[in-house]
């Protein structure tokens, strides 16, 4: 039997190379805006005690967010988890389910509001002023020919676009080879 194999693509950063410059976030905003999606960054440069890197959706193959979505706005698509913004009801179940903190509820800010006076960044949760808040997550810049824009702009090359080809062949087998090599090296000497 030949079952169709589905391995999602995803974007991931290397914290050793990332300098936390947030160019990816600016590019993400620009790409979302240009593609008519909610104009907010979908990856967040996260500064932790041990280091800094952007955090974004891992496009899990058995994604908890898509499993928990009550209206089917998050869909198991061909090679990623697709979010249909127009269906989302902003229930935030996906935020609770996501193990990576990579999906959140946001609303686009409105030009008529003076955000220096309004508590600017809680509108994603409270929607006090009427903007509908919906889930946002990395969509791998779907519709953009050149692929994810964050990967393209990263000045240090810290962001990596991983697809099903190189996850198995490049990333995994390289590490496996290195592990086997070092094990053989030790084993030959000592066992």
């Amino acid at each position: 039997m030949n079952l169709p194999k589905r391995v999602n693509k995803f974007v991931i950063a290397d914290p050793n190379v990332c300098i936390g410059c947030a160019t990816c976030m600016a590019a993400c905003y620009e790409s979302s805006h240009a593609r008519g999606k909610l104009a907010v960054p979908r990856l967040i440069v996260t500064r932790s005690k041990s280091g800094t890197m952007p955090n974004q959706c891992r496009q899990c193959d058995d994604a908890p967010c898509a499993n928990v979505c009550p209206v089917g706005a998050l869909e198991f698509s061909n090679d990623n988890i697709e979010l249909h913004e127009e269906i989302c009801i902003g229930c935030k179940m996906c935020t609770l389910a996501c193990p990576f903190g990579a999906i959140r509820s946001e609303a686009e800010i409105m030009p008529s509001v003076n955000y220096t006076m309004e508590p600017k960044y809680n509108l994603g949760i409270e929607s006090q002023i009427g903007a509908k808040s919906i889930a946002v997550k990395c969509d791998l810049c779907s519709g953009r020919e050149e692929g994810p824009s964050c990967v393209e702009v990263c000045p240090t090359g810290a962001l990596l676009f991983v697809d099903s080809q190189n996850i198995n062949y490049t990333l995994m087998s390289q590490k496996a080879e290195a592990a086997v090599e070092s094990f053989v090296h030790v084993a030959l000497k000592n066992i």
Partner: protein
Amino acid sequence: MTNDLTEFATDTEVLFLIGTNTSECHPIIAMQMLRGIERGAKMIVIDPKETDMAKKADIYIQTPVGYNIPFLNALINHIIKEDLFDKEFVEKYSHGLEYVKYAVADFTPQRVEKETGIPASKVIEVAEMYAKAGTAAICYTMGMTQFIDGTSNIFSLSNLAILTGNLGKKGAGVNPLRGQNNVQGACDMGALPNVTAAGLVTDEGVREHIKSIWGKEISSKPGFALTKVPHEIEEGKIKFLYVFGENPVMSDPWTEHFIEAVEHLDTMVVQDIFLTETAQKADVVLPAASWGEKDGTFINTSRRVAYVSKAVEPATGIVPDWKVICNIAQRIGLQGFDYYKAEEIWDEVRKVNPRFFGGLSYARIIKENGISWPCPDETHIGTPVLYEDKKSMLPDGKFKLVPVIYADDKNDRTKLEKELINHLNIPNDYPVGSGALSEKVNEEYPCLFTTGRKVYHYHTGTMTRECKPLEMGADIMGPAIEVSEDIALARKLENDCYAIVENKRGKIAAKVKINPDLRHGTIFTTFHYAEADGNELSNAEDTDPLSGMNPLKMTIAAIRKISEEEFIQVRESTDMHMHPSEQYRTVRR
């Protein structure tokens, strides 16, 4: 910088970063540093904030804000005591070793441990790593200079470099990382109160040389330091202020005082590309072309003169800054402002300072994609590494080791300096440095308050806050008051609650972010946001005796939690004085 920034990637063995948040403020330079680390370079970071670079460092030391001279003196003390200094370099190319030896005698690593809790063994480790490296580069920024002992801080750094012979070789040097693309250029052009593009105004030879080119006598009296301007306006000595490419309402310390001072002016003219907070208070606002709309040269942090050509035409009627100034000069009736293009001005610069720029024609700069000064003639290849001949720029060609002492009370500095001069019989024209804290925490204001930058915004946000991808994309935090964990704990502050920070000069209100990277007892905020500008609290009264710099990086403050209503009240009053005219209050920001 004495060296070129690309050398961090290729040649430096030890990077010594002090008072710089390189990855946030100079991402491109940080990139070169990371390449160096990948190559095997070691990195030492010294800062009150555990920055991203600190997390990547081999040794990180968290000093209190302003505690630089005792720390650097302790390093020098250990280097001298353990004979780790470069005897040949010190003997042949410098003088003043005995002065420095005396000045640092009391500053042992153990003293640092006693005063700050930083283990003496760590101080020794830093001293040894730096001194034993083949090529070690010191990098610093405003975390060293913006104090009342800023100049003395830099004396200490140059002492370190001279003692260890880290000058005049690739990958070493003393490297101030410049904060703007052309700040080096602005200084080179004489945009300082006491210099022209050719040298000091007090130097008769310089004035003669300028006269031979401009045909006019120039004043031998240095002008006012920028930090003195508000004071001089109040005294009635300055009646006309012409500001361009700057937003001093937000970038100068003690905002309230500055705003009050400019009210006394007869006329204020602001020339900018956006209607900044300063422009909103001006009598006349002149528009100008932005950097992508004009031709010219920039001189970057590595002293490299690079050509920039315009990418787009400016809007009709908008001309570059130099042309606006020339137009005004011509209306006044001044001679010699009839340039046709930027290249003519540059050629005049080359005539005024042939020692640095003589060989840098536009054709050459464009062909070679930037050349570092000094480049005296057309055959010279430029000087990415200064002092390769081990000769300083001083008249006798030797480097000076400057004794730097430390006073517990800032008022004792001159007295202690005099005592040192008398005790060691130091000649009159020999520089002597001293340090002290501008303010000490007390019961009323128990926290140290420091300012800095965020990676996504630039200075007062004049340009970056107009850029949607940066303002809405990269900056999802907005203005925030960052506090150390102990401050938050003691005052029951939690993330995202509102707080007010105040001292005798002003107050700001913003959301709280607890930042475990900060040293205990420290509050950090930025000066990017008009709605919560850290400079409202900055110290404008104390200055560095040599440079006139204010201690922008250090003051004291108190912080407390406030309700949302109070927060909005404070915000509204801040907005009122930042944007006095109703019509701009909601247009901008």
